[in-house]
């Protein structure tokens, strides 16, 4: 199956939970990544139970401060 992660196609052998997907992708700071599934925020408490299906779109985002000082 294929999903889209941050705009790029990713091939998966099987359906994964979002938590498993974060591990599969070796994302930095997995505990602090913000995940959107099909444009909608998924709460961290639901990462383990939310399953990514064929054709889904996942975005991972990080907090960014910056600016000053």
């Amino acid at each position, binding site marked *: 199956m294929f999903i889209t992660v941050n705009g790029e196609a990713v091939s998966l052998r099987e359906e994964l939970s979002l938590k498993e997907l974060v591990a599969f992708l070796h994302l930095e700071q997995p505990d602090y990544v913000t995940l*959107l599934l099909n*444009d*909608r*925020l998924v709460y961290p408490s639901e990462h383990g139970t939310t399953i990514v299906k064929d054709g889904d779109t996942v975005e991972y*985002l990080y*907090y*960014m401060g910056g600016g*000053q000082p």
Partner: protein
Amino acid sequence: MSGERIAEAAGRIRLSNEQLDRYSRHIILKEVGGSGQKKILAARVLIIGAGGLGAPAAMYLAAAGVGQIGLVDYDTVDLSNLQRQIIHQTQDVGKPKILSAQETIYAMNPDVKVNTYREMINAGNIRDIILDGDYDFIIDGTDNFPAKFLINDACVMLKKPFSHAGIIRFQGQTMTWLPGQGPCYRCVFREMPPKDAVPTCRQAGVLGVMGGILGTIQATEALKYILGVGQLLNGFLLTFDAKTMAFRKVRITRREDCEICGEHPAITELRDYEQPACDILRQKVERFRGGAE
């Protein structure tokens, strides 16, 4: 509404010959014209943080002729700021940032009035600062999450459009919130990150130009809002990676259960959040001075 206030105030402005010359490259744009330039001259923009993001945003908005620019910052200019905060000069080191920025703006464009607030924003003063100048648009140029969440919450409560941006290392992100439209910052980044989870530029470093790129996009959003031109970044988080030169517009949606802009907001009054503490910088500087890096 801000749009009505701007249009009404713009109607009282007559462009001088000097202004027709100064803003000629705006005025020949069919999306701007003389009427659009008058809107810019009538507009009021508040920039919170006169640093990496706020400096370029302030300079471009001043050059564009934004009539009133409010600057909020408590800090003084530090030598380490000058790598990216181009509104300040070497001789300004030690001077309050708002005064240094004000001098640069006044030297650039006498049409602009700069309102200065040498304060750190908090739950007790942000409402007064925003309402003091009856600002039409707010730019978040802060570096810390207590301030970013506070600006979001205050702007949603006061129904003031604002631009968020963040930068770190070679990356940046920005989004715009408009009253009654699209998601707010909390719809995406629901809660403050835990202490030490996210380093700031001071701790992790930032390529100097990142503030220029993202801060200029924030200024662009302010000008588009003032002019009523184009599509703003409401409903999108624009991300930028300087290493790959990739811009991405990530679609984001409003959460009905959002704590501040949702159907039944849990946050009904502003409050201060704890500043995240992190000693990554101190450790790095000590390692460097010790010859470890």
